[in-house]
């Protein structure tokens, strides 16, 4: 069965301070990739942590049509901060993610799954390196492996490619795209590069200053007006010779036009 996720008036509160409010989405279906965009500190990470059950707040989160309990099962969240100082190898850390809440004994099936995920992300060569020896980009790939190995239905990725080189970015996003499609995973992805959003996402959710500004198909949401109002830059969306849309930034918004 394809997973679904729907948010109704979802918000986040830290004590009395409301950092996010009014996030409402249509039903997000498995197989689709939804990109969450917006300036820094807009509330994107808070939204991810709220959906992952790490934060409380108002509103309804329905997974597969049912109100989600704090223990979401197949909701897998990859936090933005991937720094660790633990003495574990990459392989052990991925196996560790696999074994959470899944019985104490390590089975052949567990190891096969770890091998498969490490292979799909092409990080087998660093399998037995210590986590503390990895570069930022490698840590991000391992972190991604840790969520993929848990057989997710809903995948929440908070800036999963921010530390990767261009080649890896393209590869990882293509992998995420194909995983969503092949396994019917509902992917929600925070990402800053709008050109990557145009390539990978079906839908875009725009968060600004703690509220959801818009949510809809990529080509209708990403437009010059969005660049002006949310990012304060002048820009255009133009199609290249292969008819793919691209965001072209002309410069910061002229002061007079604000």
């Amino acid at each position, binding site marked *: 069965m394809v997973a679904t996720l729907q948010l109704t008036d979802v918000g986040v509160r830290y004590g009395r301070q409301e950092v996010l409010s009014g996030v409402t989405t249509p039903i997000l279906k498995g197989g689709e990739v939804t990109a969450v965009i917006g300036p820094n500190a807009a509330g994107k990470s808070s939204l991810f942590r709220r959906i992952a059950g790490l934060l409380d707040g108002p509103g309804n989160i329905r997974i597969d049509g049912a109100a989600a309990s704090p223990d979401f099962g197949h909701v897998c969240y990859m936090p933005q901060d991937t720094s660790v100082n633990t003495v574990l*190898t990459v392989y052990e850390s991925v196996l560790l993610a696999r074994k959470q809440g899944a019985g104490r004994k390590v089975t052949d099936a567990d190891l096969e799954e770890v091998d498969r995920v490490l292979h799909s992300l092409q990080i*087998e060569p660093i399998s037995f390196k210590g986590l503390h020896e990895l570069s930022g980009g490698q840590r991000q790939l391992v972190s991604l492996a840790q969520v993929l190995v848990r057989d997710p239905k809903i995948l929440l990725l908070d800036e999963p490619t921010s530390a990767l080189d261009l080649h890896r970015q393209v590869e990882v996003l293509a992998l995420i795209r194909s995983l969503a499609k092949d396994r019917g995973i509902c992917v929600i992805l925070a990402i800053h590069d709008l050109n990557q959003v145009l390539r990978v996402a079906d839908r875009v959710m725009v968060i600004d200053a703690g509220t959801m500004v818009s949510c809809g198909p990529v080509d209708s949401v990403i437009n010059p007006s969005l660049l002006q109002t949310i990012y304060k830059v002048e820009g255009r969306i133009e199609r290249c010779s292969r008819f793919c849309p691209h965001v072209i930034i002309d410069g910061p918004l002229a002061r007079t036009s604000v």
Partner: protein
Amino acid sequence: MPKGRGAYRALVQRKKLVLLALSLVLVLSVIADLGLGPARYTMREVVLALMGSSEVSLQISVVIWDIRMPVALMAVVVGAALSAAGAQMQTILNNPLASPFTLGISAAASFGASIALVFGVGILPWAIDYVVSVNALLMAMAAALFIHFMSQKRGVTVETIVLLGITLVFTFNALLALVQYLASEQALAAVVFWTMGSLTRATWPKLAITAAVMAISLPLFMRRAWALTALRLGDDKAASFGVNVRWLRLETMMIISLLAAVPVAFVGTIGFIGLVGPHIARMLVGEDQRYFLPASVLSGATILSLTSVISKSIVPGTIFPIGIITALVGVPFLFSLIMSSRRRSW
């Protein structure tokens, strides 16, 4: 067999071998410990006495079984308990300097015990050992809870926790000094000797209680091995794996205070085992709790057992208080550990 799986299995085998090697060293150390004392016995005599052979004299059997065995085993159990407590403290507080000794849990237990020693002796003279233990336990739990709740506050960093621990150490040491100041001469001597830490106070019942605490705590930790290891990947990640981080921390802290307080109550203050034991374990087997915890237990037990051997060997016929030896040996060891491990992670 694919490379990843095969290499992982080899890694696990290596860790199991390390555990086996540690166990062997521990057994040898205990045998040496049993042989040393005012009368020295050879390893053969000790082993024969342990097997109940009629080849050794009754006197040797009595000395080994009734006098030295509780002390030697107490070293093993206390070392194991303190090291397990330190290992889990470092895990849940995400702090390489955490241990019952450095964060004031031992100092709190010492203070609690000294109150019982100084003021409680007259009330329940027949049960003073147990009053001392209960008092030590309650104070240790109070200190552990304090550290726990402070560590839960927003914006509290690893450094803050260490500083907080240091304030606890100073506070409880000052209170301990106050109790000593108010104590009668006889009680003062008891407290002073007690704070030095000595295994010679070991008896079979005390050993049984400490072993029982271990027998309850370790399976509880082992059952949560995957969750505890996940904590080291960061709270967000562990929580997103479905680990109830807050509850796991609280529960672990309570078990730690039990593990730290009971040995302190019975044998006095013994420092550094809770700090050094887990570091050695981490260097040997990494931080997968399925191996890290047993390795911490074994290395803590081995260090204290070896320290017991050293405390008897410095001046033949004299047994130095073991707390003094652990501190003297522990400091340079810890220093070299810090300097070398900076190149690794912690």
